[in-house]
Structure formats: C-alpha cells, structure tokens
C-alpha cells in the first residue's frame, strides 16, 4: 500500500494545483489565453460526464482498433519471433527489413494505408499492428535467444526433441521478455489508433479530438485525450497483472 502513496500524492497535488491555477484564471493569464481555452480538471470532469454517450461511442471505436491491432501484432510478433529463432536464414533475411520498417515514420504511412484500405477499421488495425509488432517481435526473439546453452545441452541428453526444447525451455525463458515487449506496445496503442483516425476516419476519439480542437471545445478535448490515455494504461495494467500471475518464477 505504501508504495502507491508517493505517486498518488503527487498526482493529487498536481491536479489540485492545476485546478487552482485554472479556476482563478492565473494559468490563462500566464499563457496569455482566453480563460475558456484553459479548462480546469473540474470542467474536464464535467465535460466527461455531460458528453458520456458521445465519448463512450467514440471510445468504443478506438478501443476496438487498439485491441484488435494489438492482438494481430501479438500473434504475428510472437509467431515471427519463433520462426526467426528456429531458422537462421529467416532471421538473417527478415531482421534488417524489420528494423528498417520501424524507422519509417508511421505518420507518413498512415495516409497511404487509408488510400489503400479506405476509411473503415482496416487501416487503423494496420497502423496499430505495425507500431506494436516491432517491440513484441524483437523482445520475444531476444528472449528465445537468451536461453543458456547448457540448458539446451542438458535437454538434448535427456532426449528432448527440438519442439520439446522450444516449449519446455525456450518459450518459458522468453515469456518475461515477450511481456516486456507487449507492455511497451500496449502503451503506444492509443497513440497509434489516434494517428490512424486522423489520417482518415469517421468516428473514434481521434476524430473527436480533431473536431474539438477545431471548435475550441478544450474541456472535451482534454476529456478525449484522458480517455485515450486511460484505455492504453488499462491495457498496460492488464498485461502487467497477467505477467505477475503467469511469470511466478521471477
């Protein structure tokens, strides 16, 4: 319980300070802005509540993109890691292009994907999956390769087949690594989904953010952003919890 106290106090302190600075107008004056452009936490909470059905509707769209995109990346990333681990040739062939793919700015790719796959959920899944794939695949592969050679030798003299070595030794060794990759990926799913919706979409929190930004609906804008962050955080927390339950030997 005690380790939650410092971050909780910090958060309460920051929100309190923000509330004071915003409601007194000091923050707006400091930024040299109109007061309605600088909402206080209370106003944001109010916007959250008043627009709850609109926000929920759009949040559900974004959440679906995040979860499905992440799921695709998880399956593809883990599968790729295993194949690259088992085949030296595949690893040599695919590892460099994989790194290169990560260096391509996703912001530039998003419009192309929209042109190719339309305004539906398709291009958003691609973007989220592309962003999530790399940390999952690379971490899982590192994990598979981190197995102690002595453990493999021991298993071979105990008549283990290649598959048995993979499932009994390599996969459990790689599991904490895969979880690290998945957590990194989970934290950025929100950003990726919003990017996808900006590039072209009809609904979702990303679309709402643009709208609110154009209309100076700053309180609701903050509410949108809060929701995106909360969803990504929830996915991260879920994975952290699963890791604690599954990886008991660490």
């Amino acid at each position, binding site marked *: 319980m005690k380790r939650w106290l410092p971050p909780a106090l910090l958060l309460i302190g920051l929100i309190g300070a923000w509330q004071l600075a915003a409601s007194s107008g000091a923050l707006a004056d400091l930024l040299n802005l109109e007061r309605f452009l600088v909402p206080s936490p209370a106003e944001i909470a109010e916007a959250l509540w008043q627009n709850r059905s609109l926000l929920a509707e759009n949040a559900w769209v974004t959440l679906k993109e995040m979860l499905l995109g992440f799921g695709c990346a998880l399956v593809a990333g883990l599968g790729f890691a295993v194949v690259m681990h088992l085949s030296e040739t595949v690893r040599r062939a695919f590892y460099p292009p994989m790194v290169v793919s990560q260096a391509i700015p996703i912001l530039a790719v998003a419009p192309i994907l929209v042109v190719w796959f339309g305004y539906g959920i398709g291009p958003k899944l691609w973007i989220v999956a592309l962003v999530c794939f790399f940390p999952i695949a690379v971490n899982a592969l590192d994990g598979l390769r981190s197995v102690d050679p*002595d453990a493999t*030798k*021991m*298993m*071979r*003299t105990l*008549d283990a087949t290649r598959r048995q070595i993979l499932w*009994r030794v390599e996969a459990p060794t790689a599991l904490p690594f895969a979880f690290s990759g998945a957590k990194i990926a989970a934290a950025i799913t929100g950003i990726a989904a919003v990017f996808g919706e900006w590039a072209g979409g009809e609904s979702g929190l990303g679309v709402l953010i643009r709208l609110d930004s154009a209309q100076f609906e700053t309180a609701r804008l903050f509410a949108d952003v809060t929701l995106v962050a909360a969803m990504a955080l929830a996915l991260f927390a879920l994975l952290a919890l699963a890791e604690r339950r599954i990886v008991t*030997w660490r």
Partner: protein
Amino acid sequence: MRQDTKMPTAEARDFAIGAASPAPNGGDASLSIRDLSHSYGDLETIERLDLEAPAHTVLGLVGPSGCGKSTLLELIAGLQEPARGEAEVGGATDGPGRLARCAFMPQRDMLLPWLSAIDNAALALRNRGIRRAQARREAGAYFERFGLAGFEDTAPPELSGGMRQRVAFLRTLIADKPLLALDEPFASLDAITRAEMQEWLAEALASHPRTVVLVTHDVEEALYLSDRVAVLSARPARVVDELNAPTPRAADRDAAVTDPEFVRARERAMRSLREGGNGALVAHSATKAPGRGRE
C-alpha cells in the same frame, strides 16, 4: 531459505542399496576414447587423448581451467563431434548413438525455475512422452530414496544449493542412460555441503550403478569418487598422469581422505597438475566463482 536435510544415515543407505536398480539398457556401458583430438578453429583444445572407463566405474578428470574438460564431456556425450579419433560409449561411436547413451549434468544445476523440483527431475520421462502424473510418480520414488521427500513441489529457487544439486543429479539419473557426464557437479557448493554431497553421490552410485565421467577441479573429490583419475594438462589437453584411487567411494569419507595412501595419491596428482598446468592451477582456484548455493 531451507536447511539441507542430512541424508547420510545408515538406515537410508541400507534402504538405498536394498532398492538397487539393475544397470540400464542391460548390456555394455563402457567408455573408450581413442586418439581423440579437437580444436576450435586454429586453437587446439584436445590433443590425442586415450582414456578408458570400464562399465560402472567412475573416471575422474582433473585439469587446469580452460583445458578443455567441458569440451571433452560434450564430445563424449555426442553434443559435439571430434576433429579426429573417436569416443565409444556402450558400443556406439556415432554422435546420435552417444547422445542416446549419455546424460549430461551441467556445472550449474540448470533446474528450470518454472517447474517444481519433481517436474525438473522427471524431465527425461516427460521428453519420452510419459504422461505427467506417471512421470511424477516414477520420479517421486527417487525423492523418497534420496532424502528429498517433502520437497517435491518446491520451486528450485527455494531449495538449498545441496538439494538443487541432488535434484539435478536425479534428473540425470532418471534419464536411465548407461553413462553420466558430470561437469563439476559440486563446484558451486561450500566445502561442508560439498563433502556431504560427495558421500551422497557415492551412495547413489552404489545403489544405481552407472559409468560416470566426472570432471572436477578438486583433486580430492576426484580421488574420493573415482576408480581412476586422469590428470590433464593445460590446453591442448593431454593426459599427464593416471592414478588408481586407493579407496573408491569409501563409506567413511573422512577416514578415506586422511588415509596415508590417499594423501600420497593426492600429492602425486597435485604435482602432475602443477607440472602439466604451468602454474595455471593457482590462478584457477583463485578465480573460482563463489558458491551459488543457499546454505
């Protein structure tokens, strides 16, 4: 942390001997190494080695660190192929044949932390396709016999260093191979636990006879546990001396190691080591990693 349960009681010993299992795979379990050489690239690690171990004897290998002892074990176990010469285990000279006849116990226990002690010990049975419940039953019988009862479902990190080594040895034994390749099995243990484990291993081998190749940096351990000890030189490894152990695996270890004949054998082995090792032995014992055990 758990204290090591003391194993060597007369009662347990009688029981263990009474429950002696026949030699695995019935027939030949001898080891023969003929004119064996090996190298990594240009670096020659083993030079024309000739060694013999009749069935159900222990061959001790001592030598300075980095002399290729571990490589030699891997060559014997069929994990690597020699550049020249051959190793024959139970009549097999090919790699897969040797691999099928050897079980390897690595220097660190290599227990899988995600499996309980008994599931670790039963790995070979599981690899053979035996169902988990059945494998656990079979391995469980050994736990009783070897003083590990009650620790079946303990996770390896919760076990003491000595217990972990016993589980690791059981895992090797349960594989039911004619030859056991032990790579410095007790190097990570403190002196007292190591002495206890040596006695324990002597008993275990009395009740479960196997041909054993024991690599160790500890001359006393080699002379106490082995029937015959080969002293290897610094790289490339050659045999500089071979000794017969005066009292292999004597019941009373303390008496055995202070016996004048044993002391003479130890001094001779140490001398041979020093001559063959170019002083590397001193550096070796000083750089030995501190015990990983949790006594």
